[in-house]
């Protein structure tokens, strides 16, 4: 492949050397601008993280993690929101992972290239549906008539997690070497056994990466929970038939409060949430590294 830009005559040195200084200046300027842009993104990340630690760390104590939200003025904690978030995100992933993995298996093991491409577009568009619209959808389908509940909140989060996990799984299934499939089938192993016992274990690192990234993302989602699990009692509970408090909704509600005490709670809760999200992302990186090494070793 060689494509020479047509407007350039490679033998005409005079054009190229004209304005050499200006070209050098442009070149330098480009480098500086690109570097500053990257620096800007990093600076924002560090500023946000720094603010969270600065404003939130002093609020952390044992009681903060073990006590539920206080009613009026007393020193409260976020135990109810922690439990609620864990329960709802856990249920959401239990709902999303099996379906997502099956969709990915269908795409890479059964469907032809046309259907597979169409499904990819469907998943990407589903991924682009605004979280608040998913919240309204679940509100209209389930919450109206039944009231809010943690299960409905989990269902809304599962809708968000589904395309993320499915796309990550499908991408890793596509890079599992064909030779593995051929070897297994040649031994007389049935196709579904091959998929289940050979392909999936080979791809497990990539699947876990996708799952962990999805957990980190849905754990921070507020919008779908507002309409499905936001009006909760101030107590630690794991009763999935009622609305449960969650970290994002807690942060959202107290971020708009003028009370500095509530704001302090919001900062500390945000610090807890971001630490969780960062840890999950580091985990995902580790899984991803292992997966790559394994598949390269094959």
């Amino acid at each position, binding site marked *: 492949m*060689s494509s020479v830009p047509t407007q350039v005559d490679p033998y005409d040195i005079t054009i190229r050397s004209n304005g050499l200084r200006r070209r050098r200046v442009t070149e330098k300027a480009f480098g500086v601008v690109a570097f500053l842009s990257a620096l800007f993104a990093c600076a924002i990340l560090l500023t946000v993280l720094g603010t969270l630690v600065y404003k939130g760390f002093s609020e952390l104590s044992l009681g903060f993690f073990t006590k539920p939200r206080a009613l009026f003025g007393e020193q409260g904690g976020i135990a109810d929101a922690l439990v609620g978030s864990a329960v709802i995100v856990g249920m959401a992933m239990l709902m999303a992972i099996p379906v997502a993995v099956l969709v990915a298996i*269908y795409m890479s093991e059964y469907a032809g290239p046309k259907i597979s491409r169409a499904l990819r577009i469907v998943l990407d*568009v589903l991924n682009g*549906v*605004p979280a608040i*619209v998913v919240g309204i959808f679940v509100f209209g389908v389930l919450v*109206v008539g039944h009231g809010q509940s943690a299960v409905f909140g989990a269902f809304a989060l599962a809708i968000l997690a589904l395309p993320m996990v499915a796309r990550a799984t499908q991408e890793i299934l596509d890079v599992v070497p064909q030779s593995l499939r051929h070897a297994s089938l040649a031994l007389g192993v049935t196709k579904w056994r091959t998929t289940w016992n050979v392909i999936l274990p080979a791809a497990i690192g990539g699947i876990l990466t996708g799952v962990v990234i999805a957990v980190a993302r849905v754990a921070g989602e507020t919008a779908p929970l507002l309409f499905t699990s936001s009006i909760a009692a101030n107590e630690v509970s794991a009763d999935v038939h009622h609305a449960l408090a969650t970290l994002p909704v807690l942060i959202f509600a107290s971020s708009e409060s003028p009370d500095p005490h509530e704001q302090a709670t919001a900062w500390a809760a945000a610090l807890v*949430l971001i630490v969780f999200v960062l840890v999950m992302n580091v985990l995902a990186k580790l899984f991803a590294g292992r997966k790559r090494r394994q598949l390269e070793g094959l």
Partner: protein
Amino acid sequence: MTSTTYDPAAPETDLRRRGLRLGDVLFKGVSVVAAAAATALLGLIAWKVLALAWPAIQDFGLSFVWTDAWDPVAGVYGGLIFVYGTVVTSLIALVIAAPLSIAIALFLTEIAPRRVAAPIATMVELLAAIPSVVLGLWGILVFGPWIRDHLEPWIQATPLGLLPVFSGTPSQAGILPAALVLTIMIIPITSAICRELFIRVPRDLTDGALALGSTRWESIRSVVLTYAAPGIAAAVLLGLGRAFGEAIAVNQTIGNHNVIPTSWFEPGDSLGSKIAAEYVGATSLEQASSILYLAAILMVISLATNVVAQLVVVRFERARRAV
């Protein structure tokens, strides 16, 4: 596993003779159902949200979309305030984020040595991982006051301050703070996609340009950016779709005011933000009907943006396969 002894009486053997295996049929069936369910889910969401909004659409008519009013006391409702807020904040965010994202992606793929690029790429990824509610918290309590005290007075001191959109009293919550928070949210998304695109530009094309005497910037402009242009357009559209749909961080920073502000410093509201604000009151469909109309508008806008982005991607890939 296949059994080693041949037993003609076993029923599964008959299936096997016809080339069918129960496990295979079941497994394929289940995965087909899952794929169909995921597809149906997308259709179901679109249909259900439109169906929920249908009573409001019949009540208010299509003119709701361009009616500039929101007065629950008088019972007058219109969506223009929120459509304006959504479109303007997202477009401001896009105009700032697109060049920055492209520059970041170019820095990571074309300029920085690997040892520098890897940690910076990780940090940009982590920027995308910050939950919107946390970014909104920072936006309203830290970033907003900074914008009010420093950025907005500075803009007013420049010739730009003569424009009506930069007039008025600086405020910590408004169109501009919301747009800037959205900018931060879409930079990692667009720059990650652009990075993927730039990595896949064939090396021999850039090498060719360099060999002809181009500077690095000239090779990037004439080869990398040209080659990846449709992909960049798709990346920008995906970022725009994300900005349209963001409800929480915008709700925290836009100021929640039911007017179309003349100045970008002043508070307004967006579609997602307005919907999010109504959650406490939302217990019955009747009460929520105008909100559901807003949700339908938001869904149509963001679905359209996403579908167009996907079509651009598909055409881009088809063209590349043809090469």
